[in-house]
C-alpha cells in the first residue's frame, strides 16, 4: 500500500537511502538484503485479501489493462500465469522459478528491481508473495481485476442517491428540520453536545454575510432584535433571499468556477468589453432562482435548445470565459483551439461532476474509472464548439458620453506628446545622436551596427540604420515615443468604444472527427471517437445518432445522475459552513475525502432534485436548521476529538472572501454604491504599480469616476495578468483556471492593505466624518453606533473604554500634529482614527 502522507509506513520511513530505481546502461543498485521467509510463518495466504492488493497498487499500472510492459499482464489470472516475453512470472509452488519474485527482490542478475517507481516492496510484502507461490498460487475464479470503467463502481459517489430514513435522535427538541437529525445523531454517537444557538446579532450578521455579502444596518439590527415573533428569523431569511444582492453574493461563487475575467489573458491580455454580460446573466439566474437543471443546460447548450433565446445564448458565455491568445489577429491555431476545448471539457467535469477528467488526458485515470477513450469522447462534445458573438442591447448613453470624453483626452494627450517628440527630434536628438556616434564602443554593439559605425562614408540607408538603432536604445527617445502611443497618460490603451455584443458558443456546422490524442498530444491522433459520456456513469439518451452538447447537458441534470446534485449541494453547504460535507470540494471521485455525513449529503441531493432544483429552497433549508444557527465559538475541549469540526458541533468562524472584505468597508462607511450589473469598474490603482517602467506593457484601465468607484468587489475589472492588488492579497480567485477552493491566508500584507490602501482609508475617513457629525449623540453613543455599523453588535465596557481612550488620545495627537489645529479638525481626525481601527478588527472581516 502506498503510505499515507501523514502516517508513512515503517518501510518508507527507512528512507530514500533504500530507494532503488532501475538503472539502464550502467547499473549500480544498492542491494537490499534478500528477505528470508520467517520460520514457522506458514499461515495460509489468501489471494484476494493478501496478494491482490500488492499487485493492484504496485504492478497494475505497467502490467494491467492500460499497459502490458514486457507483454506481462498481472490483473487477470490467465494472463498472469501465461507470463511475459521473458518467461513465466508465476510458477506455482516454485518461487525460485517465478520471475515475479526474482524481480521484486532485486535478485535478477541484471540488477533490475520491480517496481521501478517508488519504494521497493517491503519484506513483508515479498514474503507474502513468496508464501502464496509456495502454497500453490491459488487464484480464485472470480478474482480478476475489474476493468477500468467498472473499477470503483462501488464508490459511494457513483451510486444513485437515495433518500435515507431519518436517524433516531434523543434530543428531539434540538431538531428544527431533517438536517438536524443527521447532524445530531452523529454528535450523540460521539457523546458531544452541540453548541448553543448564536446570539441574535451574530446570527443576523452571519445571515447577511452569507446570503447577500453585505452587513445588516443598525435599523435592520434593531428591527430584528425587537421582533418577538417566532418566525422573525425566517422572515429575515426570506427577505434576504429575495434581495437582489443575493444574486451578487452567490454569483461570485459561480464565477470562480467559470474562470470569469474581463480580459483575454496571455501576453496581450486584451480587454474583453462584453464579458460582464455573462456575469449579469449569472446574477439574474440566482436572483430568479433559475432551477439548477435549466441553469446547467443553458450554460452548456443554450444555443441548441429548441427555443433558444438571447438569454440562453448569453448563458453559453460560460465556456467563452476561457483564455484567448491573440484574438482577432492571425486566427486561432489548432494547438490553441484544442487546448481551449480540453479546458472546456475538464472544467465541465470539475464544475458539474466533481471529477478531474483532465487526469485521463494522457493515460487512463489512475483512480477514477475513466479510460483515456472516455476522456476523448467527452472532449469531442467541445471539439465542435465554435465561438460566436451575438448582438446585445446597447449600453446606456452615459457610457458613450464617458467614451467620447476619454477619447478626447487621449487624443489631445497624444497630440501634445507628438509635438514634444517633434521638438525633441528637431532640437535635441541630433546632438545626442552625434555624441553617441563619436563615443560608442563598437565592441558592445550588434554586428550590423558595429560594422558601419566607424565607416567614413555612409550611404543614406546606413546612416538611417544608425539613427534608428540609437533611437531604439536611447532612453529619452523611448520615453517620448511611447508617450505618443500612450496618449501622454499612464494608460497605454486607447479608450475602447462601448461594445454591444455577447460572447456565445455554437456548434460547428460540419462536425469534426475527434480522436484520442496519444499521451495527450493532439499531433499524435489515435483511435477515432464519437461524442459520448463516461461509460461508468448512467448512459446518456442521444436525440440523434450521436450525442451532442445538449444531450450531454441533459444527461448531467438527469435526476438519476449520481454526481450532479451531490456536487451542487456540497458546494451550498461549503458556502454556508466554510467547508463542505465532502471537504475536498473540487472532487468527490475516489480520491476525494469521504463525506462527514454521507446520509445527509444523499438526503440533500434528493431533496434538491425534488424541490425542482431550487437553490433558494435548499439554502433556506440549511440556514433555518439548528445546525446552522449554532454559535461558532471555538471549543478547545474538542480539539483532540474533532479538531476540524467535521461533526459540526459548532458553526465555523472564518475570514470573508476578498470581494466581501471590500464590500464590508464600503457598506459600513456608507460609501457603497449598490447598483447592480453593468460593465466592470476599475478602482484607482496604486501609483506604485502604474508608474514604473517595467510595467509599461501592462494595460491599465482608466479609473472609474463618480459613484462607480464605490461599486461592490464583484464588479471590479478582472484583468488576468494584473489582478487588482487588494482582491489578490485577500486570495481572490485566479481567473486563469477553474477555482473550486479559495485559500484563506492571513498575512501582514493584508493588514497593510486594510490600514493603508487608499480605498480603505477613504472608507475610514467617510466613516469617521459620519461619526463626528452624528447629531444628538454623545461620544459613547457614537462609539456604539460605530460598533454596530462595523460588527453589528454593541461594545462591551472594556471595548467602550478602550475606544474612548483612543478617541481622546487621537484628538490630542492630532492637535499636536501642527500649530493651531482647530478643535473641530482634531475631533474629526480622532474619529477617523477610531473608524480606521474598527475597519481593521479581525471581527470586521470575519463571519462568525
Amino acid at each position, binding site marked *: 500500500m502506498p503510505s499515507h502522507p501523514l502516517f*508513512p509506513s515503517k518501510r518508507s*520511513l527507512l528512507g530514500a537511502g533504500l530507494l532503488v*530505481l532501475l538503472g539502464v*546502461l550502467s547499473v549500480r543498485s544498492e542491494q537490499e538484503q534478500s528477505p528470508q521467509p520467517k520460520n514457522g510463518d506458514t499461515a495460509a495466504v489468501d489471494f484476494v485479501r493478501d496478494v491482490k492488493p500488492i499487485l493492484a497498487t504496485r504492478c497494475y499500472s505497467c502490467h494491467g489493462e492500460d499497459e502490458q510492459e514486457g507483454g506481462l499482464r498481472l490483473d487477470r489470472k490467465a494472463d498472469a500465469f501465461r507470463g511475459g516475453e521473458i518467461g513465466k512470472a508465476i510458477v506455482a509452488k516454485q518461487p525460485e522459478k517465478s520471475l515475479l519474485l526474482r524481480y521484486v527482490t532485486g535478485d535478477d542478475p541484471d540488477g533490475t528491481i520491480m517496481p521501478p517507481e517508488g519504494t521497493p516492496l517491503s519484506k513483508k510484502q515479498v514474503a507474502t508473495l513468496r508464501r502464496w507461490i509456495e502454497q500453490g498460487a491459488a487464484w480464485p475464479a472470480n478474482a480478476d481485476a475489474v476493468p477500468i470503467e467498472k473499477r470503483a463502481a462501488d464508490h459511494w459517489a457513483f451510486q444513485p442517491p437515495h433518500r435515507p430514513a431519518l436517524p433516531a435522535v434523543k434530543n428531539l427538541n434540538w431538531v428544527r428540520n431533517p438536517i438536524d437529525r443527521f447532524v445530531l445523531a452523529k454528535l450523540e454517537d460521539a457523546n458531544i453536545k452541540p453548541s448553543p444557538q448564536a446570539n441574535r446579532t451574530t446570527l443576523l450578521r452571519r445571515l447577511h454575510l452569507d446570503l447577500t455579502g453585505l452587513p445588516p444596518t443598525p435599523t435592520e439590527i434593531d428591527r430584528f432584535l425587537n421582533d418577538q415573533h417566532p418566525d422573525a428569523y425566517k422572515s429575515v431569511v426570506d427577505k434576504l433571499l429575495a434581495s437582489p444582492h443575493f444574486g451578487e453574493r452567490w454569483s461570485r461563487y459561480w464565477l470562480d468556477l467559470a474562470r470569469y475575467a474581463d480580459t483575454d489573458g496571455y501576453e496581450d491580455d486584451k480587454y474583453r468589453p462584453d464579458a460582464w454580460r455573462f456575469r449579469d446573466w449569472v446574477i439574474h439566474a440566482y436572483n430568479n432562482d433559475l432551477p439548477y437543471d435549466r441553469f446547467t443546460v443553458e450554460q452548456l447548450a443554450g444555443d441548441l435548445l429548441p427555443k433558444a433565446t438571447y438569454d440562453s445564448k448569453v448563458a453559453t458565455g460560460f465556456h467563452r470565459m476561457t483564455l484567448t491568445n491573440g484574438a482577432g489577429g492571425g486566427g486561432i491555431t489548432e494547438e490553441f483551439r484544442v487546448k481551449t476545448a480540453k479546458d472546456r471539457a475538464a472544467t465541465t467535469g470539475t464544475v458539474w461532476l466533481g471529477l478531474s477528467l483532465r487526469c485521463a488526458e494522457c493515460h487512463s485515470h489512475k483512480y477514477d474509472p475513466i479510460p483515456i477513450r472516455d476522456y476523448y469522447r467527452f472532449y469531442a462534445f467541445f471539439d465542435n464548439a465554435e465561438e460566436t458573438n451575438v448582438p446585445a442591447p446597447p449600453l446606456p448613453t452615459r457610457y458613450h458620453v464617458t467614451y467620447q470624453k476619454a477619447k478626447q483626452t487621449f487624443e489631445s494627450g497624444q497630440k501634445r506628446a507628438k509635438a514634444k517628440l517633434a521638438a525633441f527630434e528637431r532640437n535635441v536628438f541630433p546632438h545626442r545622436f552625434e555624441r553617441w556616434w563619436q563615443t560608442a564602443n563598437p565592441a558592445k554593439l550588434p554586428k550590423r551596427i558595429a560594422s558601419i559605425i566607424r565607416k567614413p562614408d555612409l550611404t543614406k540607408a546606413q546612416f538611417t540604420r544608425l539613427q534608428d538603432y540609437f533611437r531604439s536604445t536611447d532612453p529619452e527617445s523611448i520615453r517620448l515615443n511611447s508617450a505618443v502611443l500612450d496618449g501622454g497618460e499612464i494608460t497605454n490603451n486607447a479608450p475602447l468604444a462601448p461594445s454591444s455584443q455577447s460572447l456565445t458558443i455554437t456548434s460547428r456546422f460540419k462536425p469534426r472527427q475527434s480522436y484520442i490524442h496519444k499521451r495527450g498530444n493532439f499531433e499524435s491522433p489515435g483511435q477515432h471517437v464519437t461524442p459520448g459520456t463516461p461509460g461508468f456513469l448512467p448512459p446518456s439518451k442521444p436525440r440523434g445518432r450521436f450525442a451532442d452538447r445538449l444531450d450531454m447537458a441533459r444527461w448531467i441534470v438527469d435526476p438519476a445522475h449520481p454526481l450532479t446534485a451531490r456536487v451542487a449541494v456540497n458546494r451550498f453547504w461549503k458556502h454556508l459552513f466554510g467547508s463542505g460535507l465532502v471537504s475536498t470540494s473540487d472532487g468527490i471521485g475516489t480520491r476525494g475525502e469521504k463525506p462527514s455525513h454521507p446520509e445527509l449529503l444523499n438526503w440533500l441531493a434528493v431533496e434538491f432534485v425534488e424541490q425542482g432544483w431550487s437553490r433558494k429552497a435548499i439554502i433556506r433549508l440549511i440556514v433555518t436548521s439548528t445546525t446552522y444557527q449554532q454559535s461558532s*465559538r471555538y471549543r478547545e475541549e474538542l480539539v483532540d476529538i474533532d479538531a476540524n469540526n467535521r461533526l459540526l458541533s459548532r458553526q465555523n468562524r472564518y475570514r470573508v472572501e476578498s470581494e466581501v472584505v471590500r464590500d464590508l468597508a464600503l457598506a459600513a462607511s456608507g460609501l457603497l454604491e449598490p447598483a447592480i450589473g453593468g460593465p466592470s469598474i476599475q478602482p484607482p490603482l496604486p501609483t506604485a504599480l502604474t508608474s514604473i517602467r*517595467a510595467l509599461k506593457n501592462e494595460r491599465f484601465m482608466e479609473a472609474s469616476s463618480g459613484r462607480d468607484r464605490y461599486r461592490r468587489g464583484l464588479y471590479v475589472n478582472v484583468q488576468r495578468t494584473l489582478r487588482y492588488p487588494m482582491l489578490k492579497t485577500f486570495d481572490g480567485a485566479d481567473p486563469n483556471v477553474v477555482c473550486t477552493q479559495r485559500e484563506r491566508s492571513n498575512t501582514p500584507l493584508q493588514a497593510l492593505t486594510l490600514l493603508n490602501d487608499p480605498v480603505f482609508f477613504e472608507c475610514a475617513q467617510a466613516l469617521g466624518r459620519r461619526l463626528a457629525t452624528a447629531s444628538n449623540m454623545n461620544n459613547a453613543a457614537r462609539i456604539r453606533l460605530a460598533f454596530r455599523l462595523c460588527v453589528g453588535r454593541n461594545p462591551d465596557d472594556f*471595548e467602550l473604554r478602550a475606544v474612548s481612550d483612543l478617541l481622546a488620545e487621537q484628538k490630542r495627537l492630532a492637535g499636536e500634529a501642527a500649530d493651531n489645529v482647530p478643535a473641530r479638525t482634531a475631533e474629526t481626525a480622532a474619529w*477617523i*482614527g477610531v473608524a480606521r481601527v474598527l475597519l481593521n478588527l479581525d471581527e470586521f472581516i470575519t463571519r462568525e
Partner: protein
Amino acid sequence: MHADNEQLLESRRGFLTSSASGLGTAALASLLNDETSAAPQSSNGPIGPHHPPKAKACIFIFLAGGTSHIELFDPKPKLDELTGQPLPKSFFEGKRFSFIKQPDALSMGSPFGYQRYGECGTEMSQLLPHIGKRADDIALIRSLHTDAFDHAPAEILFSTGVDQPGRPSAGAWTHYGLGSVSKNLPGYVVLMTGRGPVSRSSTWGSGFLPTRHAGVLFRGQGEPVLNLANPNGISERMQRSQLDTLKALNDRRYQYLRDPQIRSRIDAYELAYRMQSAAPELIDVSQETKATHDAYGTERLGEAGSFGRNCLLARRLVERGVRYVSLFHRRWDHHSKLTSRLEQNCQTVDQPIGALLGDLKRRGLLDSTAVVWGTEFGRTPVTQNQKPGPLAGRDHHRFGFSLWIAGGGAKGGQVIGKTDDIGWHAVEDRVHVHDFHATLLHLMGLDHKRLTYPVAGLDVRLTVQGGRVVEKVLA
C-alpha cells in the same frame, strides 16, 4: 486539515505570553486584565539549530515546469551521436520503462554546446555563461531523481517532501526550526516572476505548522509590497496608538472566542507595523549602484527585468536577516520548440542568477547563504514523439536530472553523481529529492531527523518518507 489543531497547540503555549509581551504602550497595559499581564515570558522560541550551521539563509530558486538537464548541466556525447534514431534495441532488452514505447520518440542530443567553466572545469551549457562564471562555487548534482512526473505533485514533493498538498514547505520547516534574524520582515519571503508554480501556495504554505511559518508572497509587478506608508494625516504616533487599541480589541475577542486565527491576525498586524519601517528601505533599490542594476539586468524589459529585480531583492532580503527566500520562475515546460524557448529562458535567468552569486560572494555572504537551482524534474533524452529539430520538445523525466547548490557550506567546483550515457537514469551517487532536503537542512544547521512536529500523536518531519545527508555536498 490539521491546521486548526496545530494552531491551537501553538496558541496554548503562545497566547498568554505574546499578548502581554508584545503590548505596545504602558497606558494600555492597564486595560488588560491582570491574568494576562502576569503571564510568563514566552518559551516559544525556535527549536534549532542542532549543530553549527554553515548556511544562515537560503535562496531557493525554483525553475518550475522541469528544466532540461540534457541541455543545461549534463553533457551526453553518446546521445548526440544517436540523435534522430530510436533508442537502440539493446537499450530496451530486458529493461523496463515507464512510458517509452513509441517508435516516434527519437533520441535528441542538445542543440546547444557545452563548455568548461571555472578552474574546476565543470561542463555546463553555453546558454549559461553567467552562472558558468561561478562554477567554482557550485556543487552540481547530476544524479537527482524524484517520484512524481506531473507538475503539481512533483512541485509539491520538491517543496514539501510529499506529493500531496497540505504539508509544510522546506522553507516553513526551516523557519520553524530556526526562526528569523529579521524581526521586521517576514522570515520567509516568496518572490515570483510569471505565474509561478501550478500548485501555488501548496509550495510555500505552512501545512500543519502555525501560519506564521508560511511564506509571504511579495508582489511580482510594481512595488514588491504595496501600502507601506501611512495615509496622509496619520502620524507615526497616531498609527501606533491606533494599532495598540486594535490589538487590545482583537485580543479581547480572542479571550472571548479562543479562535487561534485571531492570534495570527494580531501577529500579522504587528509584523505589518514593523514592516512599515523596515520594508521601504528594503525595496528602495535606488541606492544600488548602476553597475549592480546592470549586472542583475533590472531594467531589462518584461520577465527578464522582473526576474533580475527579484534576484536583487533576494540578496537584499538575505542581507537583512530573512531566513528563506523562494524565487519562482515558471516557463520551463518545453514539450515543443525547446530550442528557442530554452534559449529565451536562459537569457532571462542566467544573467540575474550569475549576478546574484557574484554579488553575494563579493559581499562575503555566499559562505552563509545556500543558493539552490531547483526544478521539479528533468526532461526526456528523447523527443516527445517529434523529429529532432526546432519544433521538437522533451517530455517530463524523473529518473535522472540535475540541480545545484552554491555557497552556504556546499563544496563548490565539483560534480556529484552521474546519469547513464544518454541521461536517462541516475546511476552513480543517486540523490533523491528527500536526500536533497536532508542535505539542505543540514547546511542550515538542522538535523532532518530531529526537526519534527507533533501531528495526531506522531512526530512528523520534512523527510517523512526518508532521506539522508549527501556528504559529498558538504565542504
